[in-house]
């Protein structure tokens, strides 16, 4: 079956604690019939599954995930339902909603006129549900925002973990105090008799072990039930060993006035406290790593004022449908993508295009959702809503990149998958070696070493190393206007040795502008331009548009031509204010016997500089020349210089003649230009460079360069973030500025360096920690602290990427 027939679904998963969990779910899903590819991201807590809908279904995935001991997180939406009269109505809505794909459960309350739907947001949207209800003949309104729900759920979870930590900390302090009394160097500290009593210690340690530590037992049980092992197994084993051995010792102490027995209650309690603390830090840091998405979502307007049945009403953004007429006041955000039907204003599009100067828009122009209406009142027709808006597309690309796996991660996944059984074996061997040879018969000492090995070896840091860096790196890159499509592109971009730039629209603006005006001595320039502009006003040719715009920008008012005729291939003939004008090529002048000899030299010079020159004759006499050309972006030269400083070879590719190509290349500082290449030949040229052993990045506007973008090792589409040319490329550069290329390469370099640091730290920690613990240099509670510290440090290191500075310009995402 071709890829086209495959479907992809993303499921949010809860209950994963380490990389062993994610790889187990991944394996389980990949084993299902009809699953083409499944990958699970631990940091994002999401599974991405490509499947054949004819063979399997999302329900099967949910069941599999639940069978493995985890849960698929669903979202809840609440609706106000209008138009129901009896139980049959509510039943009908309920049935209708439950039939929608992605809806887990829909419950309708007739008395309250509300409906609650539990659903997977990846499969079905709130709008789909509203449409369904309306299709059934009722009305539905959203009661809550889904992002608030998720945020609420996360915050609640963090609050709960915080509470658990405080609870176990308070009960662990007396146990820690009692431990202090055992060390020689702290023996001067007074320890109350009460805390040395085994039964008091038992009473304090038991709630920590079984109430707070319940989550580890449950997690371990689920893992073992599925014949695998994870971090929970190690924690449960380690702490239980300490707790039950102490319990046994406590019973032995009966009758022997037990102050002298060796107890390890403090070990188990402190371990659990520290691990919960580590998890708390981790959860907070994980929340911060998805800040880029939150910022992007924050750009959206929350409500829109629409015209419904002749009335202006304010509705939540989710309820706006395509075709709605929307009113936007000055200072308000444009709610969705649309087209202006009335009014004019300057729009601040900086949040999406990076362009700091507001763009003037008037009736007929398109507007992008989430941009800011600066000063005019606008009436807009919604064209794209919900998941189709430009902003939603950008969010989707960033989310997918954050959730994707970099190839470097596969190795870490493989290792952490087999890690736990190996560690348990090492721990048992350590115990036996200590019990039989090192300290024969000393059960307590051997047990202590076993616990330390079990605890230090948790592979949490290993599992978090790559995904957290990818999340933070791709999020930060998005703030610079660089959208990586996947983790693999973020990983490979730093290997680029050669950057091939398409000329038109990449190095240059891609839009012709009026560059030169040359007039005969007898002709006054402003009057000349007024005539030319008025004549060209009627023409729809792009060059004519450039001339008219250039003249208008000079503040010259134009007349309406009395007569106008376009002569294809020659130019135009027009009558303005009683004067007969001819504007066009030499051929046009020849056709009407106009003498243009005096313009020959100037014309040639302009053409050598890559400009298109047009001759103008007024009342049968040559009067002057207007020239238009595609201009070079102001930032191109500096951007190319930055690439060169990074040691990257920069090549320009164009269909222009060699002389023009060379002139432009020299102007921007490119050493080598490949000229006279047809669009279809660009891919061939990229291949040639690759055959020379170069790693090539092709940068183009993503539409006519698609084959070259696909062939290149990394394809970069340069756009404004509004084009859905993102499909064609591996990276989308939202700012139409070549500086983004260097930003992308630097971001990739920094992310890869960060991943390597994380992996090194995680591996070093485990490979050094295990022998140190086995030899006996690490007390179990220290092992616990080190374990918690390792996960937290890996996440914090990844978060450094959020503050990385690769260039001066970031996007204003303050919302």
């Amino acid at each position: 079956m071709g890829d086209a027939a495959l479907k992809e679904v993303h499921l949010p998963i809860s209950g994963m604690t380490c990389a062993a969990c994610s790889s187990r779910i991944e394996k389980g899903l990949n084993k299902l019939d009809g699953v083409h590819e499944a990958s699970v991201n631990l940091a994002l807590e999401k599974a991405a599954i490509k499947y054949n809908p004819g063979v399997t279904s999302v329900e099967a995935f949910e069941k599999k995930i639940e069978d493995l001991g985890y849960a698929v997180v669903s979202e809840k939406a609440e609706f106000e339902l209008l138009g129901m009269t009896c139980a049959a109505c509510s039943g009908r809505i309920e049935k209708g909603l439950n039939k929608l794909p992605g809806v887990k459960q829909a419950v309708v309350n007739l008395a309250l006129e509300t409906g609650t739907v539990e659903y997977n947001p990846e499969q079905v949207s709130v709008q789909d549900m509203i449409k369904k209800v309306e299709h059934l003949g009722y009305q539905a309104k959203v009661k809550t925002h889904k992002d608030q729900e998720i945020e609420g759920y996360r915050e609640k979870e963090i609050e709960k973990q915080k509470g658990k930590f405080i609870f176990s900390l308070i009960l662990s302090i007396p146990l820690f105090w009692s431990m202090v009394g055992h060390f020689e160097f702290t023996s001067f500290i007074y320890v109350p008799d009460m805390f040395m009593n085994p039964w008091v210690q038992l009473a304090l340690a038991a709630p920590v072990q079984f109430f707070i530590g319940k989550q580890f037992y449950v997690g371990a049980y689920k893992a073992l039930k599925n014949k695998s092992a994870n971090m929970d197994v190690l924690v449960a084993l380690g702490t239980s060993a300490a707790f039950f051995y102490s319990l046994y010792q406590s019973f032995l102490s009966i009758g022997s006035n037990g102050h002298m027995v060796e107890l390890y209650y403090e070990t188990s309690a402190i371990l659990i406290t520290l691990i919960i603390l580590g998890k708390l830090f981790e959860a907070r840091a994980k929340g911060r790593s998805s800040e880029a998405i939150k910022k992007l979502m924050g750009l959206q307007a929350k409500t829109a004022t629409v015209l419904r049945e002749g009335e202006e009403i304010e509705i939540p953004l989710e309820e706006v449908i395509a075709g709605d007429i929307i009113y936007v006041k000055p200072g308000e955000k444009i709610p969705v993508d649309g087209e202006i039907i009335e009014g004019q204003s300057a729009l601040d599009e900086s949040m999406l295009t990076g362009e700091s100067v507001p763009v003037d828009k008037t009736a007929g122009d398109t507007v992008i959702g989430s941009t800011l209406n600066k000063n005019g009142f606008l009436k807009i027709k919604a064209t794209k809503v919900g998941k189709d808006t430009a902003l939603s597309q950008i969010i989707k690309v960033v989310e997918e990149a954050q959730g994707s796996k970099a190839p470097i991660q596969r190795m870490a996944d493989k290792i952490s998958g087999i890690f736990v059984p190996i560690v348990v074996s090492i721990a048992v061997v350590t115990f036996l070696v200590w019990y039989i040879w090192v300290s024969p018969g000393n059960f307590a000492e051997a047990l202590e070493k076993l616990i330390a090995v079990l605890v230090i070896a948790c592979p949490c840091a290993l599992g978090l190393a790559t995904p957290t860096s990818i999340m933070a790196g791709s999020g930060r890159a998005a703030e610079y206007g660089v959208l990586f499509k996947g983790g693999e592109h973020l990983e490979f971009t730093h290997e680029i040795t050669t950057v091939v730039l398409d000329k038109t629209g990449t190095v240059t603006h891609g839009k012709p502008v009026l560059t030169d005006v040359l007039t005969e001595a007898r002709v006054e320039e402003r009057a000349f331009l007024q005539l030319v502009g008025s004549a060209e006003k009627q023409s729809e040719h792009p060059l004519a548009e450039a001339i008219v715009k250039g003249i208008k920008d000079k503040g010259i008012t134009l007349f309406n031509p009395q007569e106008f005729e376009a002569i294809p291939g020659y130019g135009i003939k027009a009558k303005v204010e009683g004067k007969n004008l001819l504007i066009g090529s030499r051929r046009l002048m020849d056709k009407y016997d106009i003498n243009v000899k005096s313009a020959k030299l100037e014309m040639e010079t302009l053409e050598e500089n890559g400009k298109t020159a047009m001759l103008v004759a007024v009342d049968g006499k040559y009067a002057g020349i207007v020239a238009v050309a595609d201009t070079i972006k102001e930032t191109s030269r500096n951007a190319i210089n930055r690439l060169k400083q990074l040691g990257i070879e920069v090549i320009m590719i164009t269909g222009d003649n060699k002389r023009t190509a060379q002139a432009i290349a020299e102007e921007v500082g490119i050493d080598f230009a490949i000229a006279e290449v047809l669009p279809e030949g660009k891919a061939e040229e990229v291949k040639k460079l690759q055959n020379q052993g170069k790693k090539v990045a092709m940068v183009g506007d993503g539409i006519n360069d698609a084959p070259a973008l696909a062939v290149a090792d990394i394809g970069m589409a340069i756009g404004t973030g509004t084009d859905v040319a993102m499909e064609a490329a591996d990276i989308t550069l939202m700012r139409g500025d070549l500086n983004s290329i260097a930003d992308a390469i630097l971001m990739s370099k920094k992310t890869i360096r960060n991943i390597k640091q994380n992996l090194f730290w995680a591996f070093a920690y485990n490979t050094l920690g295990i022998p140190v613990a086995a030899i006996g240099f690490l007390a179990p509670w220290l092992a616990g602290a080190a374990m918690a510290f390792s996960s937290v440090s890996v996440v914090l290191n990844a978060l450094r990427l959020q503050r990385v500075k690769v260039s001066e310009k970031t996007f204003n995402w303050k919302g």
Partner: protein
Amino acid sequence: MKKWAGAAIAYLVLVMACYAAYDSFWAKPEPIPHDIEIENHE
């Protein structure tokens, strides 16, 4: 969070109170070391 902290402190106080009660009513006196007893006899 306050609830969790309150519950933990209440529980800790309860455990300490139980120990104090046990200590004052039912705990046996510490046995006097044998050599000290002999010394006293002499």
